[in-house]
């Protein structure tokens, strides 16, 4: 028992060090934005896929925004991927198709397997361009975003591109404000540090792009994946394609405004991430593939991010157990170390990262909410642990994953 605890404490310390390394790099290191200056070019044809499942509240906003972006109109085709919607999504899309003939082509999907990856896979029959951009329906791209996301594809090593997500309903309530802080830390520090250090920026599946030839080479969208974005990141990496992060390619999104929706969202992410960890973890770390050593290490740590929640809980329990059983040779030191390690990952390192992100964003007062992140952290650690337990239980019972769509909170136009 004590050796398991030693291992857990060591792993937690590794993640703590990783958080500090990323934050310090972001604050003081060389910042890589190699493609952001490409503002003049012979822009390639691009297809923009907008994934939509019962999105009547938001779909019109993104289609309107896409029709006003600064990209040659004759080189951009928007395909709203209407995935079995039962609300007014279809009618709204058809209205836009009529209004913008040749610029928007609808893909209505009435049946088939559930999930975004399955819908995107089916929609690929309409895609002929080498560059594909993907947005979820609740996003609102700015005028220059399409060019910014296309620019990295001039680099033939780039297979995927990811932009920055910014919550537009940040001020709604405590939850949205906490998610706003979390997003800042995740993108402004975590993703950009990985870009700076040539590690593994993660493809987010929205405000994102993928190269058609790369996608074909890795076997297309994996409809069995619960998080097609994580799955795509690792298959691209294993096949020698880079995913790049563009911190200045920002796009508004809507974050969950109620806790149950947030819990469902993070549980789905956790299950998908864990699925990718099982599928690609060993192959990435020790298998024969095109990833560099630093990509192998960072990629493996990234795969383990959601597994750390149950591991931390187990470590916590073990620490208390060995303390009260008196089996620990170092007596209270182990318990103290475990609690400190827990505090470091939940309380200090990650929070330091978020505080640094808020500073880089030039915001001041929102840092005051940092202590409340312990609440978000507590919800996350138990939700993610529950997701892992359910996943293991489903594996045993053979239960199928049920796809939960993230609820929207905007008013219908």
């Amino acid at each position: 028992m004590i050796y398991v605890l030693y291992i857990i404490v060591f792993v937690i310390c590794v993640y703590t060090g990783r958080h500090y390394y990323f934050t310090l790099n972001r604050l003081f290191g060389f910042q890589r934005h190699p493609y952001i200056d490409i503002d003049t070019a012979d822009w390639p044809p691009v297809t923009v896929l907008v994934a939509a499942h019962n999105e009547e509240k938001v779909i019109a906003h993104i289609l309107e925004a896409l029709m006003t972006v600064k990209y040659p109109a004759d080189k951009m085709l928007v395909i709203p991927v209407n995935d079995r919607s039962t609300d007014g999504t279809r009618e709204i899309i058809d209205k836009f198709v009529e209004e913008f003939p040749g610029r928007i082509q609808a893909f209505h999907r009435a049946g088939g397997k559930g999930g975004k990856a399955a819908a995107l896979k089916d929609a690929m029959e309409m895609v002929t361009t080498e560059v594909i951009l993907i947005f979820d329906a609740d996003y609102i791209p700015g005028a220059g975003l399409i060019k910014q996301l296309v620019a990295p594809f001039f680099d033939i090593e780039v297979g995927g591109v990811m932009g920055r997500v910014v919550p537009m309903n940040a001020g709604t309530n405590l939850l949205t404000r906490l998610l706003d802080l979390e997003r800042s830390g995740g993108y402004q520090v975590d993703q950009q540090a990985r870009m700076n250090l040539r590690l593994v920026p993660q493809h987010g599946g929205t405000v994102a792009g993928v190269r058609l030839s790369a996608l074909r080479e890795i076997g297309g969208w994996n409809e069995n994946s619960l998080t097609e974005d994580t799955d795509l990141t690792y298959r691209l990496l294993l096949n020698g394609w880079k995913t790049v992060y563009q911190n200045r390619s920002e796009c508004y999104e809507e974050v969950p405004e109620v806790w149950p929706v947030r819990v469902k969202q993070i549980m789905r992410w956790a299950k998908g991430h864990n699925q990718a960890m099982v599928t690609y973890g060993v192959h990435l770390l020790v298998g024969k593939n095109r990833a560099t050593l630093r990509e192998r290490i960072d990629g493996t740590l990234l795969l383990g991010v959601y597994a750390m929640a149950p591991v931390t809980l187990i470590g916590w329990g073990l620490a208390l157990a060995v303390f009260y059983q008196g089996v620990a040779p170092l007596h209270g030191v182990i318990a103290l170390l475990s609690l400190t390690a827990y505090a470091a990952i939940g309380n200090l390192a990650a929070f330091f990262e978020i505080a640094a992100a808020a500073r880089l964003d030039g915001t001041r007062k929102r840092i005051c909410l940092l202590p409340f992140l312990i609440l978000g952290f507590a919800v996350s650690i138990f939700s993610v642990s529950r997701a892992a337990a359910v996943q293991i239980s489903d594996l045993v019972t053979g239960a199928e994953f049920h796809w939960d769509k993230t609820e929207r909170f905007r008013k219908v136009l």
Partner: protein
Amino acid sequence: MNPYLAVAALVCMVSLMFVLPLIPTLMELRRKSDALPLSVVQQNAGEIRYFSDSFRSYIKGLEPIMQGCVAAGTTATGALPDGEEYVVLGRVDEPLVLVLQQRDATHLVMGADVDLTLPAEARFSKDIYAGGQFIGGVKNNFRAILGEKNVHLGASSRVLRWVHAVGEFTADLDCNLYGRISSDSLIQLRAGCSFRRLNAPRIEIGRVAVDPEASPPQPNLADGGTPHRFQHDGDFEVQAGQVIVGDILIRGKLYVHSGARIYGSVKSVEDAVIADGVAVEGSLISARRMRIGPHCTIHGPVIAERELAIATGTQCGTLEHPTTVSAPRIELEEGVAVFGTLWAREHGQVVAIA
């Protein structure tokens, strides 16, 4: 002391000590003073002409005054709606300009058809609008200039923020151009000039003889070629005169020898050296340093993540297919032509031909 009171006091003290650090948190939660979404630029796509377009809109209200001054050959002064002072010139003579230089907080607005030749060492700390030709003197110092016709800067002049010329923009020897420089037709810089961000249909470094439609001859597919995406781990050399059809990705240093033609894009994850007379149909990217030329033709974007040096006679992009050349540090020899954008994130320098 009453023990109950003591316990209550202790509880209160502890609670206070616990809550005290959270007071800013609770206040911010209640006041929502920093709860707006982060500012994401929705409409400005980072365009180089953003400031000049904004300035044009800003002084739009002065049009009638400008026309009146030009017609009467007079000068007008006043304040814009935000309180900024301005001077509108309907005619220009040297003593008047010398007076204007002393008025540090004044926008200088010159009406259409009024050409201006500035004396040496004139300094302007506010934006200038020029309706006619604008000819700067030696060692002038400007904040920003919007010129409706040609704008010429004298030797050793300095621009702190931006210049936009509807006509041609030319800078004489040793100018320092710190901000955004754009033209709707041509930018020409001479040796010794430093720059950051330039955009024009045609950018000439020194005197150049360019072919705006230059394009490498079409590949002879019968010669055979490389696979569509050729990857190589380690250093790699493209031989002199070799023709490659397809993209090449090199995970090491790249040397492209004289006269090679690549009908595709090129990426090197380390340094890249491109010898003379090389033609690249697509993009040319190095994750570190890159040296190009002389007399090369590159059609796609040229990116170096650390440093880029381009030798004389090299041409990037064409009038029909403009492109971007970008690196933190760029050194260009006289004789280089770029069609589109030239962007040195930290420092760009024009050097005389060795």
